[in-house]
């Protein structure tokens, strides 16, 4: 039988209780998922609020993606809790000084907002299906109409007002939710690696690039699956968005690291030993070089050269995959990396990721992929494609 506690090997001096890693890979998956939610919502907002017309083909998909991932956001946390059955204690009796206590409220509010916005966005489609279908699914759509079959121009105008308002509220909600996740780490003064004022913004910008990248990949994949041509204008729009935000993300992360090194507070020697040793590959090579700088340069080249056609599709898709990987590595390097540097500032620990078990690699992969399954179901029920009736609003 697997021992219930995994002890971490260490070097140097670490506190005895630190030899057990308390936040596993699941706690890295959690901000990754919330980041994808916030990022995907950004795309939806760019279209709905800021009028980026070229993003129209992915606007509805962005909403569905955001919702699918948001529904799975609490799962890694619940799996990690010692008493998941008590999870609602933090919502019933929130301890207001805790950064974690508000999560239930923020998350529920945001899910409700997404469902409401989705409902308004899909209302013409729902009404159409409710009137057309006679099968069980027709009953489902009739239920979803909530008794409102009015799709007149007047009603549509009213709906559009709601969509706009919800999208506007959604921007601070989505970004607040994720910035707040960053604050949960940044506000801890026990670890030099986490304790940073920049942490919430770093989380936010990495979230945006990850969500936009996810949509780019999903858009290309769904086009291939549906055998329809990729709208290059839309893909270019996504590429521009990634390119613009990746610059900010890189600058912020660079500043954060420069701050730690330049201030050189107690424990910095150990941090330097860590980043030039065990973290060299996951941090500098995978997160920065491969996952961020490579796609940045590649995207810059494509924008400069005006690349189009198949080269653009391949280029953007590969870059987006690299960004998705980079952002996961960022979550990993923060959550796991932070714990690998001892609070003593005099020792290093090493985390061993088990393959099986409640907090193993397989569960982490499953939880990251599960929202895609839900997204598939949602796209069957509510086709987000721009050629469908869903875009009556546009």
């Amino acid at each position: 039988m697997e021992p219930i506690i995994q002890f971490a090997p260490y070097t140097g001096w670490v506190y005895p209780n630190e030899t057990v890693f308390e936040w596993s890979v699941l706690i890295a998956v959690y901000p990754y998922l919330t980041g994808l939610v916030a990022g995907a919502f950004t795309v939806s907002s760019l279209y709905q609020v800021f009028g980026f017309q070229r993003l129209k083909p992915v606007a509805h998909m962005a909403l569905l993606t955001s919702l699918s991932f948001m529904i799975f956001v609490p799962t890694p946390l619940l799996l990690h809790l010692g008493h998941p059955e008590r999870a609602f204690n933090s919502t019933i009796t929130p301890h207001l000084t805790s950064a974690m206590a508000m999560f239930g409220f923020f998350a529920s509010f945001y899910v409700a907002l997404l469902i409401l916005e989705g409902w308004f966005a899909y209302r013409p489609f729902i009404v159409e299906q409710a009137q057309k279908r006679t099968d069980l699914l027709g009953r489902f759509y009739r239920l979803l109409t909530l008794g409102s079959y009015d799709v007149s121009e007047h009603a549509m105008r009213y709906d559009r007002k709601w969509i706009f308002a919800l999208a506007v509220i959604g921007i601070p909600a989505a970004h607040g939710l994720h910035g707040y996740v960053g604050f949960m780490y940044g506000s801890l003064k026990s670890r030099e690696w986490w304790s940073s004022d920049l942490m919430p913004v770093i989380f936010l910008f990495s979230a945006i690039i990850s969500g936009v990248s996810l949509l780019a990949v999903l858009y290309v994949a769904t086009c291939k699956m549906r055998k329809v041509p990729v709208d290059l204008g839309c893909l270019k729009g996504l590429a521009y968005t990634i390119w613009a935000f990746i610059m900010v993300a890189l600058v912020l992360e660079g500043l954060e690291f420069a701050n730690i090194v330049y201030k050189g507070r107690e424990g910095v020697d150990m941090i330097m030993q860590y980043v030039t040793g065990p973290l060299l590959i996951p941090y500098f090579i995978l997160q920065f070089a491969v996952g961020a700088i490579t796609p940045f340069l590649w995207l810059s080249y494509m924008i400069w050269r005006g690349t189009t056609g198949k080269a653009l599709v391949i280029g953007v898709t590969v870059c987006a995959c690299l960004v998705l990987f980079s952002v996961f590595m960022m979550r990993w390097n923060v959550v796991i990396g932070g714990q690998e540097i001892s609070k003593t500032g005099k020792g290093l620990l090493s985390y061993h990721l088990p393959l099986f078990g409640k907090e193993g690699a397989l569960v982490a992969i499953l939880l990251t992929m599960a929202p895609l399954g839900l997204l598939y179901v949602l796209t069957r029920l509510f086709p987000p494609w721009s050629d469908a009736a869903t875009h009556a609003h546009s």
Partner: protein
Amino acid sequence: MKKEDSAPTLAARRAFLAKLGGAATCAGAALGAATLGVVPRAAAKPEVTPDAASFPTKDYDWTKHQWGFGVDATKCIGCLRCVEACKRENDVPANAHQFRTWVERYVHVEGDAQVHIDSQQDPVNIEASGSEKTFRFANRYKDAKVDKAFFVPKLCNHCTHPACVQVCPTGATYRTKDGVVLIDETYCIGCRYCVQACPYGARYFNEEKGVADKCTWCYHRITKGLQPACVEVCPVGARMFGDQNDKQSRISLFIRNSRVQVLRPESGNAPNVFYVGIDKEVN
């Protein structure tokens, strides 16, 4: 006709109102009894409001004490009896990775700029003790020329502004009126945010119970007038405990008569474990 009808109706109404009045009186009496403490006592939750005068037992008033802990590191001989006593007294998991209290050893070897630090959980020390249930420091420096060496007992600092309490999402961990940071095992959700937030590494996660755990200064003992187990067994008096409200208590005298310091004062946590005889490397 109308007048005739109205008389019995009025009578009925009066009777009804009289009954209602009676019922209201009964309800009022019940409410009064409840206010006097009849009902609350029956329905009371195990924890009472922080203002209550007696907690957790009838004979103990937590508003009358302000506990504090002292460590005179110059006296500690690293025998680790405190660690073993704590494990037994508080049912701490019998392994070399989870402790409510521990002892650190600092050794300066001649010609070596780096101080060597270890604790009882170090694999070399565990090998020397031969078990993860009993602890001892291995004589690993017997062939070295030691310039300076000392032991530092560590435990939860029961801070005045505890970071662990601040981050707890449910309020399951809290600071008592008498200055002890406790965890409500029946309310903790096991998120381990507190474990991360503690800069001293004083908390661990009890896998079997699914909740965070740490030193309570043996709250079950001190509220009965006893000393914490680690203080009780210390053969050299390196650990001391007492009421800071009592100016003649051991802890008050220790703080008053020595130049004490706390660990990581820059954290703003305001610890309540006071040290004498620690060196610059200790944090």
